[in-house]
């Protein structure tokens, strides 16, 4: 029964990766070969097709970390802790992509790489919170107390998400609003298509990465339990950490 579920899980993961790959190829085709060059910014605007979806993926990672953290505090399980940890890692990786690609766009569009704009500052803060989370997990062991402390930090990190999102509307700043309420929008249908494909591709990519990362973390937990059992049974001469 468990083997059947594992096999269908593997099949689902492979299907997810295949669909994501096809969508990425389609995104690159539409964004680079079909969508026109933007009138004011020129070719550098094409960074947008990966910058904005990366920011969205950072939100997804942070949300996964929040959900896993809350669930862990309600009822601690290895799976919930693994979800929180995987979400934090996803938030850091895509947050870094946002913090690198954004300034490269800004260099052309604004004439400078960085400014302490509300959205830029809160985004950097968000990444730093999750970096702190990962540093905590890496250097403080994997006990119940450490996990709970990390879960609290995971919840705290998510509190910043709405601040990033509404920063532009509340405090203005340099960061442009293109999509959503008050946004200028994308004028050309191929620009809209490229962006829509990128958003779907990044959503599925995030799901695949989370899935793979949670599985790895669960395997690590199972191995730790097996090592502890082996020591308890006297099979393993090493002492518990």
């Amino acid at each position: 029964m468990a083997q059947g579920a594992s096999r269908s899980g593997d099949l689902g993961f492979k299907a997810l990766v295949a669909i994501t790959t096809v969508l990425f190829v389609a995104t690159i085709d539409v964004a680079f070969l079909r969508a026109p060059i933007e009138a004011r910014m020129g070719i550098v605007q094409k960074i947008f097709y990966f910058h904005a979806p990366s920011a969205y993926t950072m939100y997804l990672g942070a949300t996964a970390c929040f959900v896993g953290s809350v669930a862990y505090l309600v009822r601690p399980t290895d799976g919930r802790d693994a979800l929180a940890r995987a979400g934090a890692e996803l938030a850091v990786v895509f947050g870094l992509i946002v913090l690198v690609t954004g300034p490269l766009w800004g260099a052309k569009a604004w004439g400078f790489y960085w400014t302490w704009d509300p959205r830029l500052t809160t985004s950097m803060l968000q990444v730093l919170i999750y970096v702190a989370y990962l540093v905590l997990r890496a250097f403080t062991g994997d006990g119940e107390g450490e996990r709970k402390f990390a879960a609290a930090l995971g919840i705290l990190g998510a509190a910043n998400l709405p601040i990033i999102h509404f920063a532009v509307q509340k405090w203005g700043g340099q960061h442009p609003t293109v999509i959503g309420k008050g946004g200028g929008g994308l004028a050309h249908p191929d620009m809209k298509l490229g962006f829509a494909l990128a958003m779907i591709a990044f959503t599925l990519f995030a799901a695949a990465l989370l899935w793979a990362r949670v599985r790895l973390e669960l395997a690590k937990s199972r191995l730790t339990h097996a090592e502890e059992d082996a020591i308890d049974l006297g099979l393993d001469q090493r002492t518990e950490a």
Partner: protein
Amino acid sequence: MHGDTPQPMTPPAPASASGATGTSQPATMEFKAVDNESETHSGFNLMVAAYAAIWVILMGWLFLLWRKQSALHTRIDDLEREIDKAAEKAEKAAKQGAR
């Protein structure tokens, strides 16, 4: 990074305004270099840099995951070795018991 802003180019005055009567004069314009000013960033280079950065970050993460997986494999190998040792010991003990 930011030097002086280049002055906008001013077109040469029309021939009639400069007092020439009827004869067409060649339009002259002097191109001057602006000191310490690289005009602007190349959009293409910035775009390539952005996509290179995306790949570097994702590959870096993949490398870290690969290292984590390698560490897990080492731990599994150690555990298997210990289990094999324990099984050998148990087998020897069983043989001695049978004698």
